[in-house]
């Protein structure tokens, strides 16, 4: 950075007579541009810090009033006197639904991306890509209402099937009745993050260097072997980045989960029985009727979500950074 900005001025002084006029103008623009970008860059930090400070400042009164352990209590009775609330169930639910959504969405998304980049003829791939991107533009409340009012029925059937055939697994152990469950919320969430993961990884796959692919084919690899040896290793950092973006969306999703989860405040791996809740959904459903302490408590839970998201993003950054070096070295 420092060398590139430092470079233009000394050579400009060298050439002699004509140098004086063009020298000043680019320098002024240079400074202005540099100032603008630096300000924009700093702004992000300022906003993040401001959000954190605001959340902590608002959360403290409720946390000091809290009669239960904020980290281990499952229930959320923040409006009571004395208030008793904790994030155990909501934070657990947030992570559980997000992880299941990723498990369901990522394989499908990668399949779609590979199909679009390497298998489908271009005439089909381009419009199909558009359609996938269109899915990202559907508002989450629409997904939520669809999940709550229509999609729950097939999921009910699926739950029954899973319980009858795999009921010995604790996660499918619930005997019903089947309604809104972690499974329903996770599937809806999976559909919502599908387009993000798909379009990002498709872009990465398409940028695989042609000589890598051709080299693999020349060595006698089949198409699948070529993808496995050339495309996937090259795209790995991109895949991870797209998955992490999808995870970020899943963790913060609010209204779709508020509509499709059962709203039961309990730490449980039961996927098919009525149950599930998440931090964001809890905030959305309780903010309207919350009293002062209740509101402060909800903000405290927002702080936890903020922290979870921050950690996830940092891990993602670290992974992407390390992998890129590795892939760059091997390529």
């Amino acid at each position, binding site marked *: 950075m420092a060398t590139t900005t430092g470079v233009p001025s000394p050579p400009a002084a060298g050439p002699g007579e004509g140098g004086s006029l063009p020298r000043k103008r680019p320098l002024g623009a240079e400074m202005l541009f540099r100032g603008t970008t630096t300000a924009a860059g700093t702004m992000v930090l300022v906003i993040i810090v401001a959000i954190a400070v605001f959340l902590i400042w608002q959360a403290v009164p409720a946390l000091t009033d809290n009669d239960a352990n904020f980290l281990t209590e499952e*229930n*959320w*009775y923040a*409006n*009571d006197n004395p208030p008793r609330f904790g994030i155990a169930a909501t934070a657990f639910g947030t992570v559980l639904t997000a992880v299941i959504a990723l498990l369901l969405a990522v394989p499908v998304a990668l399949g779609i991306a590979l199909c679009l980049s390497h298998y489908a003829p271009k005439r089909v791939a381009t419009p199909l890509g558009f359609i996938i991107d269109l899915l990202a533009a559907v508002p989450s409340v629409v997904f939520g209402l669809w999940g*709550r*009012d229509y999609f*729950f*029925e097939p999921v009910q059937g699926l739950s029954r099937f899973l319980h009858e055939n795999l009921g010995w697994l604790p996660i499918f152990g619930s*005997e*019903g*009745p089947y*309604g*809104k469950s972690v499974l329903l919320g996770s599937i809806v969430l999976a559909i919502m993050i599908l387009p993000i993961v798909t379009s990002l990884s498709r872009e990465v796959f398409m940028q695989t260097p042609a000589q890598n692919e051709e080299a693999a084919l020349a060595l006698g690899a089949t198409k699948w072997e070529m993808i496995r040896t050339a495309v996937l290793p090259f795209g790995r950092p991109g895949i991870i980045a797209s998955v992490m973006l999808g995870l970020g969306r899943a963790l913060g999703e609010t209204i779709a989960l*508020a*509509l499709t989860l*059962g*709203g*039961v405040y*309990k730490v449980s791996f039961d996927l098919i029985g*009525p149950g599930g809740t998440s931090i964001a959904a809890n905030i959305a*459903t*309780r903010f*309207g*009727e*919350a*009293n002062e302490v*209740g509101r402060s408590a909800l903000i405290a839970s927002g702080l936890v979500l903020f922290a979870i998201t921050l950690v996830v993003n940092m891990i993602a950054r670290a992974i992407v950074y390390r992998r890129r070096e590795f892939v760059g070295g091997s390529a």
Partner: protein
Amino acid sequence: MKLKRHGLLASVALCATLALAACGSDNEEPGGSGVDASKADCATGSLNARGSSAQKNAMDEWIKAYQQQCSGATINYQGDGSGAGITAFTGNTADFAGSDAALKDGDETTKATTRCGGNAPLHLPMVVGPIAMAYNLEGVKDLQLSPATIAKIFSGAVKTWDAPEIKADNPSATLPSTQILAIHRQDSSGTTENFTDYLGKTAPDVWTFGKGKDWKAPGGQAEQKSDGVAGAIKKSAGAIGYVELSFAQVNALSIAKVKNGAGEYTALTGEAAGKTISGAKVTGTGSDLKLTIDYTTKQAGAYPLILVTYEIVCSKGNPADKLPLIKSFLTFTASSAGQKQLEKLGYAPLPEETRAKVEAAAKTLA
């Protein structure tokens, strides 16, 4: 065929036009026989009110009717919750609040008194919303439930529809072995508070979860707002939930008969709910009409499970520019004509004795 349909459309349109025209002329005549027979004592200005979503439909209807008669008045009611309403009232951004529960002694009352310039805030019971036990069970029409059975269903002790407890309440019905999906409110709600209060008073040995706006019993499924509960009951076989009557009616849900303190299974009607209200005790003093509902009422024919929502307003110390309109509007809503308008919306009108007290109290506002 096509011609016929056109003819039908035309005649419908004609009828509608005639009806509208009739309405128009009614309003001009002083003794018109429209719905708004008793003319409101019009005042002008604008009011902002905020609070309970349970009385939102009633307020909308009243505001529409009032503004039709009184052209110079603008009234807004924002139905985003009792808590928000009370906060807005004490913060002086609402002229009166709608609330499912009376102000709590202590902080809430102190703040409201300060807001009223040191005068006491009044509770005017205005809207009575019966709570229906709505269910979805194919082949079972006249379900009857006792409070203890309801408490067992909602605490998860009774899990299937053919459980002995339900059989005992319905000796003649054939009950399927469907699993029960008990549905409660996810958001904090006055409906939940009244329902849990009812269970605690009528089935104290079974219902051990106390009363409160937040649901505390284990199990079941949570839904957002009354429309969420009603919608979930409608689409889930074997579901049961508590929801304001209007929502049960709109969704055409079956409504169970509930056993009252006299030992009768009573169907939910406006009249039956009114009988419980007239048995309610006034615990406020003077014009303050805080009610305590006797859920265990022994009166014959009374439907015990009801929700009373209040308007909370300053007894004295209302700003001079707002007072005439506050007084006029609340007198209108407490009038017998105003109460009558609510019947078609699924609310129960206040019984005459209580209504007269509320109307008199509204007239004393200063």
